[in-house]
């Protein structure tokens, strides 16, 4: 299977209505649960009509809307293996729409379109050692892949997770991370740029973790998800470990208004991040002047 293949079939889109379909019409979904995660992030459990399965792959996103406020792309936190009648989104309060999303209570009705975009090719990753290096909120989309690997653990080689945050308050999924730490089939390291009085772990930017890891470049796939600035440094480390650009996957955040390759906002060179991305190999990204 070519990694550039992506399917145009999505669960909720396009929706039929009076004999027409609209790629812009959201399904009306319900917020089942809201959990505070950090000072800035909340986790929303979303249920599609009739508990329909979202049918996504790790690394994809949905368009989340509150009609009357707006719509924005949100990456999916749940792995397919843990998606039944509901799925989870970890959303940072970072703007106009997300600040209103953060006021939503269980029972609220919202709009969902998608899933959209090219996710990570999990089948291609099978049998490989996986090095996953998320930064900050990047752990949310990476979580989708990590849980998928954990739930199909025998299909993959080593699972190395290197997680970097600016400070201890920003660390996501603390309980889950503690569970990962206990497992002997996950090699986990967490670092913060700046610690506080309670922090006893590693201090330093995410790249300072790489010297503590030995990998077999012949059989490793690296996946890194984080802010644009992080990619420049993480890719240097990964190349230094002997990985080729084809073995490095990343996910790009871009402004998106439609999610279906029409509105033009998410363009990276000639590619639409909502269709041809948001997951790319570093080799692909290198070919785009605008990517990094």
């Amino acid at each position, binding site marked *: 299977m070519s990694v550039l293949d992506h399917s145009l079939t999505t669960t909720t889109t396009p929706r039929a209505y009076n004999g027409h379909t609209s790629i812009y019409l959201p399904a009306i979904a319900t917020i089942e649960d809201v959990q505070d995660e950090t000072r800035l992030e909340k986790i929303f459990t979303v249920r599609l009509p009739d508990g329909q399965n979202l049918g996504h792959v790790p690394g994809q996103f949905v368009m989340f809307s509150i009609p*009357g*406020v707006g719509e924005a792309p949100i990456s999916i936190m749940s792995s397919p293996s843990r998606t039944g009648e509901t799925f989870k989104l970890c959303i940072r309060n970072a703007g*106009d729409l997300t*600040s*209103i999303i953060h*006021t939503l209570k269980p029972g609220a009705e919202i709009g969902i379109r998608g899933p959209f975009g090219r996710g990570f090719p999990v089948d291609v990753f099978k049998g490989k050692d996986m090095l996953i290096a998320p930064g900050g909120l990047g752990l949310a989309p990476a979580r989708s892949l990590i849980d998928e690997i954990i739930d199909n653990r025998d299909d993959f080689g080593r699972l190395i997770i290197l997680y970097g945050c600016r400070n201890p308050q920003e660390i996501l999924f603390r309980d889950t991370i503690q569970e990962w730490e206990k497992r002997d089939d996950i090699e986990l390291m967490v670092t913060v740029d700046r610690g506080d009085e309670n922090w006893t772990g590693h201090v330093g930017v995410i790249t300072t973790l790489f010297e503590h890891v030995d990998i077999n470049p012949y059989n490793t796939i690296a996946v890194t998800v984080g802010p644009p600035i992080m990619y420049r440094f993480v890719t240097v480390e990964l190349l230094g470990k002997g990985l080729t650009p084809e073995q490095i996957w990343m996910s790009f955040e871009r402004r998106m208004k439609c999610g279906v390759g029409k509105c033009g906002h998410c363009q990276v060179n000639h590619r639409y991040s909502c269709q041809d991305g948001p997951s790319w190999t570093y080799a692909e990204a290198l070919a785009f002047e605008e990517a990094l």
Partner: protein
Amino acid sequence: MPAKPKVAFFDFTSCEGCQLTIVDLLQTHLGLVNLVEIVQFREAMTEKGEDYAIAFIEGSCTRKSDEDRLRKIREQAAVVVALGACAHLGGVNAMKNRWAIENVQTYVYGEDGKAMYESYEARPISAVIQVDAAIPGCPIDRFEFLHLVQKMLQGRAPKLPDYPLCVECKLKENACLNKLGKPCLGPITRAGCNAICPTYGDGCEGCRGWIPEANFDEMREILRGHGLSDADIDARFTMFNHYQMQHMGDDAPVTTTVSPVKDEPLPTSTFAAPQEEPVR
């Protein structure tokens, strides 16, 4: 529906045209009173409630003694919105800042009258108190006002367009006035008015303030192309935006100084009467 927020309107140095626009809006969109409770609005009602959460303030601050009143409004209101160009930018009132204030007072009120009328450099209300949002324009656009109220009721932070008027003008398929040789500040002025002046054939005068990326150099070149002198261009740049230019200091994109010039002659006018006979 939660309790309607209480809203009050206030005016300082202004023509009250922005408040008039809201009175007008209430004729066509009476449903607005189902969204908010107006407790004070001198132009529209006699009651004067002092319990309000949102204050809309029209007019610039041109007297030291007005500052206290502004601060009192600020203390009471959870949200303060500058209503229109005068409150938002200082507006046309700030044109007088070009001359020393005593000269202006003498010019307007005469030697004997000047002491009776307090005045100081005109300024936007944000120069005196913290302002949470602004509705630009001279006068304001009624729909922009309505949308801002709706956005605030949703709990959202209002946001102004940061692209120029040309966008709206093109969408309306207007002929470009600058292309026709008529000066228009649309390329550097913040959109949101639906390009109303150019639509009716009048060049934009910049009442909504500049966009963040205003290209003053190229705008000046375009205006020079229409035969305007640099002094004329400065006058256009400072008509509504004198206060901003003043505070840009040496970075102000004008060829003359925008700080008070004591010696510069005041303009002659048949309207003002500086030579009038002293009041007996």
